[in-house]
């Protein structure tokens, strides 16, 4: 059934019978749909499977559901983009997707599961060897286990086993919204506080039917774009560092902090904590702050431009970036990649354009088509320019009026989908209420959930020594995926 994102819909109306559900899901995905979310929701002793499908070009979202008691037919063999979703369904509900080629745990949170212990793919043959890395890595970075099947330097296959960051956030939304819900959303992935907080607020607002005032929308836009600016700038610096080009690495390390400090100027916290609240924004900007922010924006942007331009002019950098870790457009589409990683492979998806929300109007997206590290870096640079333009526009013409509207009770027996373009890509929150108007189920899909497999593909056929560079070019979230 077609629904609008960011507005509530009657959850009962999307019910189908199980066979029809699977058939419909397959035909919609075959028609070019992309799975936004696919999960199992407990209902008595059975489970309701719910799938949200997005048609990017038509800005269309459809939702289907069906009650299942026994095993189901896996759709992964035809639609690889579902592989992690179906593994998650199996792990969370016990419903077994029959015929899934890769059925193994993803978060190791069931009784008896031991993190990292699963059936790994192995390649056999003379001189084939296996390299295992993690969960504790060399840098100050989140934990995860990576297994490479190699022949000499060449990587045949990389398997990424995560779950170490699983702290059980998702299910704590159930029964809410309560005093802790917002902070849970803000810490789903700490570097995406604005993105996830907005997605959460969007879902709650849709369910309560409140209209967020334009000034609050613009302020939210400022926060989200500052988050993107900080992270993209930091990533470009880190990419430079990984190919031992220290000027840009050093400059961008500092400049990332300048964007974070601008965020702190707005709400007191460098990651944007406490800024979002259902119904609007917690902090307003007066003229003095607006002026200060504009001044810093211009100053910082000039330095970013200077630091980043060095990358494209330096042969040794371009040589390492070009043709490294290539993900083809077909692979990106097949795996349902999102965000800069998808746009770098030529996929025309940006939530701000395809599923506009809040203050975004007539947004034009940035793509850069070759799918290699260079493209993933260059797309970030294009997006930095776009974000600066947006923030400047909002700061110069901040709509007048209140920054908050009262957010009332949630509509009972309803659901809402909220899509936000975080800096890593599309964030999807799917909220379902029960008869009492409390959250009965809450599903979070971080962009990293889609994109980790993209990293594995980038390594295929490449050299193992390119792993750090490829990894940085995706810079995915472990905690956002592990929840």
């Amino acid at each position: 059934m077609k629904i609008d994102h960011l507005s509530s819909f009657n959850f009962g109306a999307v019910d189908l019978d199980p066979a029809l559900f699977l058939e419909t899901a397959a035909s919609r995905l075959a028609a070019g749909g992309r799975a936004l979310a696919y999960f199992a929701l407990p209902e008595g002793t059975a489970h309701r499977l719910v799938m949200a499908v997005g048609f990017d070009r038509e800005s269309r979202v459809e939702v289907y559901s069906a009650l299942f008691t026994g095993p189901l037919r896996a759709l992964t063999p035809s639609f690889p983009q579902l592989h992690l979703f179906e593994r998650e369904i199996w792990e969370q509900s016990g419903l077994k997707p029959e015929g899934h080629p890769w059925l193994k745990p993803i978060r190791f949170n069931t009784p008896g599961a031991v993190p990292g212990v699963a059936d790994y793919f192995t390649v056999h043959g003379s001189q084939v060897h296996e390299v295992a890395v993690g969960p504790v890595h060399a840098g100050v970075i989140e934990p995860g286990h990576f297994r490479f099947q190699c022949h000499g330097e060449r990587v045949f296959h990389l398997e990424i086993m995560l779950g170490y960051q699983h702290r059980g956030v998702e299910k704590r939304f159930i029964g809410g919204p309560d005093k802790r819900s917002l902070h849970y959303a803000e810490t789903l992935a700490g570097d995406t506080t604005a993105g996830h907080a907005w997605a959460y607020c969007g879902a709650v607002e849709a369910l309560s039917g409140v209209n967020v005032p334009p000034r609050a929308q613009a302020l939210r836009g400022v926060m989200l774009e500052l988050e993107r600016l900080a992270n993209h700038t930091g990533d470009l610096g880190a990419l430079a560092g990984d190919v031992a080009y220290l000027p840009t690495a050093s400059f961008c390390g500092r400049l990332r902090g300048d964007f974070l400090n601008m965020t702190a100027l707005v709400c007191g916290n460098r990651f944007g904590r406490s800024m979002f609240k259902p119904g609007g924004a917690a902090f307003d900007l007066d003229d003095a702050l607006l002026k200060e922010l504009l001044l810093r924006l211009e100053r910082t942007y000039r330095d970013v431009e200077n630091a980043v331009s060095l990358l494209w002019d330096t042969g040794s950098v371009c040589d390492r970036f070009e043709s490294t870790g290539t993900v083809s457009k077909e692979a990106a589409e097949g795996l349902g990649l999102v965000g800069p990683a998808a746009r770098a492979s030529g996929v025309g998806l940006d939530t701000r354009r395809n599923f506009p929300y809040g203050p975004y109007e007539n947004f034009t997206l940035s793509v850069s088509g070759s799918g290699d590290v260079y493209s993933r870096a260059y797309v970030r640079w294009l997006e930095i320019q776009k974000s600066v333009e947006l923030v400047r526009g909002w700061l110069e013409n901040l709509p007048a009026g209140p920054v908050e509207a009262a957010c009332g009770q949630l509509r009972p027996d309803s659901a809402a989908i909220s899509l936000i373009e975080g800096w890593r890509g599309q964030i999807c929150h799917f909220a379902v209420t029960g008869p009492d108007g409390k959250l009965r189920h809450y599903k979070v899909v971080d962009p990293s959930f889609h994109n980790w497999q993209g990293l594995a593909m980038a390594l295929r056929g490449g050299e193992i020594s390119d792993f750090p560079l490829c990894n940085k070019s995706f810079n995915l979230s472990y905690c956002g995926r592990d929840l």
Partner: protein
Amino acid sequence: MIKALIARFRQGYRTMEFPSADIKLPARYLGLPKLKSLKLEAAAAACAYGAISAGANPALDLGRCVFCGACAQAAPEAVEFTQDYRLCASARQNLMITESDFKRAETLGADLRRIFGRSFRLRQVSAGGCAACEADCNVLQTIGWDLGRFGVQFVASPRHADGILVTGPVTRNMELALRKTYFAVSSPKVVIACGACAISGGPYAGHEECVGIPEDIPVDLYIPGCPPHPLTILDAILRLIGRIP
């Protein structure tokens, strides 16, 4: 090359002085809280993390606080946040803020200070959490902060480290890895719990998926915050090794 040199010149010298009286934090930053009154009922009711206890032993537990500011908003007559970023403590109970002064961490004993005071290597262990603490540790290694000038460095191997800095609520899935890392560091060694999660579970306190830092890994330094500001982390580490009196 010439372009890189010009850029280097343009970008200027950016390493901040530390410690320094000129450090300016944004006006809305929430630092060390102060109790203005011991009538904490309203503030305690506003706190979603059980950080404030009212009644017989009124106190605010910095180890649980995520610095959301809800208490000060609900009860401005009782709780106020200052701009003081120096928040570390060397004993868990010193994180309990009451009316009397906050007892900041003191340095390591003379012996340890002699060993670690001029060269201190840490292995960071990320164990759950949201990775914001990790980001603010990473920032200390950028040119703006230049952690290395104090002789402090994050290293890749626990075998090269003088201690570990733990972030996150220690998920069940990371408990073993944390233990192995800790026991791979040779003695004498130091343990730092960085952020509300590592200290008390933070926003994830009470989740059965999280176990906290096990008791056989004794913590020497607590750095509160969600996440702690890089200034807070830097101040805490330097205080511990006796670089700040």
